[in-house]
């Protein structure tokens, strides 16, 4: 889809004036709505509405053998599905590069924050652990899937619960609750978009279509940076990247306050 020159110019001009289309300020993050527990078949679920972006996340824990190099730790795996219902640009089929990048970046933010206590997901060392499968379905695309998905995973983890391990039958018993997930941190992902000479937070889909570069920063409860991903076909200066860190921390604090 070709973006008109007029649209690109309008967005650039407005941002330069500190005023984006749809009325936001350059440093204004849309207020998300997070609804949890909507999918009873999942062990933790959340729907996140960010502007018109709508994503739904569900957790399915599975029993596995641990990885040989981490014999007493459980694991997590993150998959994004860019449903063709979300945008005229999405086509049905196997995950493409964007979908894979989304999965891996969101995974990185959550995993590297240390949110999930993997050792507490171990049932029997070297033999049996829980693997948490996060599936993220994108239903409506209005930009900033990265941050919306991180919110969804965090909210699902905080409100979901593990199944019980039935040692006798050696299966997961989903009819019983094995208690809340073992959690230690509450990460937030904050994404910025560089358009012209300015950097705005939480890009909408029109802004993503014309951005020159973007940067997603994962922030932990302790205000540490746990993940980063730069995208787009242009670059940031050193000063620009450094300036985004305190902005990300500020936004992360605010978003963290909105979690269940």
């Amino acid at each position, binding site marked *: 889809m070709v973006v008109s020159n007029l649209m690109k110019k309008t967005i650039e001009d407005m941002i330069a004036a500190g005023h984006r289309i749809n009325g936001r300020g350059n440093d204004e993050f849309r207020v998300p709505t997070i609804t949890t527990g*909507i999918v*009873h*078949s*999942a062990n933790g679920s959340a729907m996140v509405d960010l502007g018109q972006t709508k994503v739904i996340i*569900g957790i399915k824990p599975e029993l596995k053998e641990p990885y040989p190099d981490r014999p007493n730790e459980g694991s997590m795996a993150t998959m994004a*599905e860019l449903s063709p*219902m979300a945008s005229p640009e999405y086509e049905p089929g196997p995950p493409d590069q964007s979908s894979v990048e989304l999965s891996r970046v969101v995974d990185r933010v959550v995993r590297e924050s240390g949110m999930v206590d993997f050792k507490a997901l171990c049932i029997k060392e070297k033999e049996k652990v829980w693997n948490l499968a996060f599936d993220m379905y994108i239903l*409506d695309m209005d930009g900033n899937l990265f941050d919306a998905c991180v919110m969804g995973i965090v909210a699902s983890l905080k409100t979901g619960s593990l199944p019980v391990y039935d040692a006798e039958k050696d299966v*997961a018993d*989903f009819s019983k609750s094995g208690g809340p997930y073992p959690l230690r941190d509450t990460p937030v992902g904050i994404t910025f978009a560089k358009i012209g000479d300015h950097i705005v937070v939480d890009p909408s889909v029109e802004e993503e279509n014309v951005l020159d570069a973007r940067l997603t920063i994962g922030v932990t409860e302790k205000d540490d940076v746990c993940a980063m991903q730069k995208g787009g076909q242009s670059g940031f200066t050193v000063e620009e990247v450094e300036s985004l860190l305190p902005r990300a921390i500020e936004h992360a604090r605010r978003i963290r306050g909105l979690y269940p």
Partner: protein
Amino acid sequence: MATEKPESLITDGVRLDGRSAEEMRPLKIIAGYLDKAEGSAYVECGGTKVIAACYGPREVHPRHLTLTTETLVRARYDMASFSVEGERKRPGPDRRSTEISKVVSEALTSAVFVEKYPKTAIDVFIEVISAEASTRVAGLTAASIALADAGIAMRDLVAACSFGKIYGKEGGREVETVAVDMGKSEDNFGLADVALGYLPNLRKIVLLQMDGHLTVDEFRKGLPMGVSTCESIYQQQLKALKAKFKQY
């Protein structure tokens, strides 16, 4: 993990969730549920929750499938990995969802004035986010609303439901009862399951699938029950579409 087979699915006229044989589960419908799609709907029937979205008419991809004198109505049914009880379902289409996509596409095609949009496609996507039986009919009900929401010219809406046969006890004796809207356990352990898609104004059956065992009499009993349930669903579809237009 497998749930155990219940001793009775209907005891003295009361099903496991308290319904009678003729009763549907509570139905919730929202038209225009999404923003980007041309038309969309959310349908909830008991614990089954589905979302349908329609894009079209639009260019056909891949191009070689383009029909010169009409539009191509294509529905794609999918179940989210976390939508089923128990073990995670592998994402993506499997043979079951491929078959469902086909029969749903055909049901919708019979309703659409396809000659009105030559050389285009009308793509409908159905996502089951929570499955508690009768998901394909909930999906078809939602898909039809999504098409109407998108302003697609149609002869009629499509309302869909399931009906079947369940075993139980009546005054201590064993019975087999024809019932509508198969729910949890009923589609698993029931004796017959019929999916019905219906044009309520034109009174035509556009989707019909069945498995199990039914006598001709039982089928003759169940079909009008199914049709009547579809007519109730239709009333809810109308309400949902009209509710989109607020009065100021």
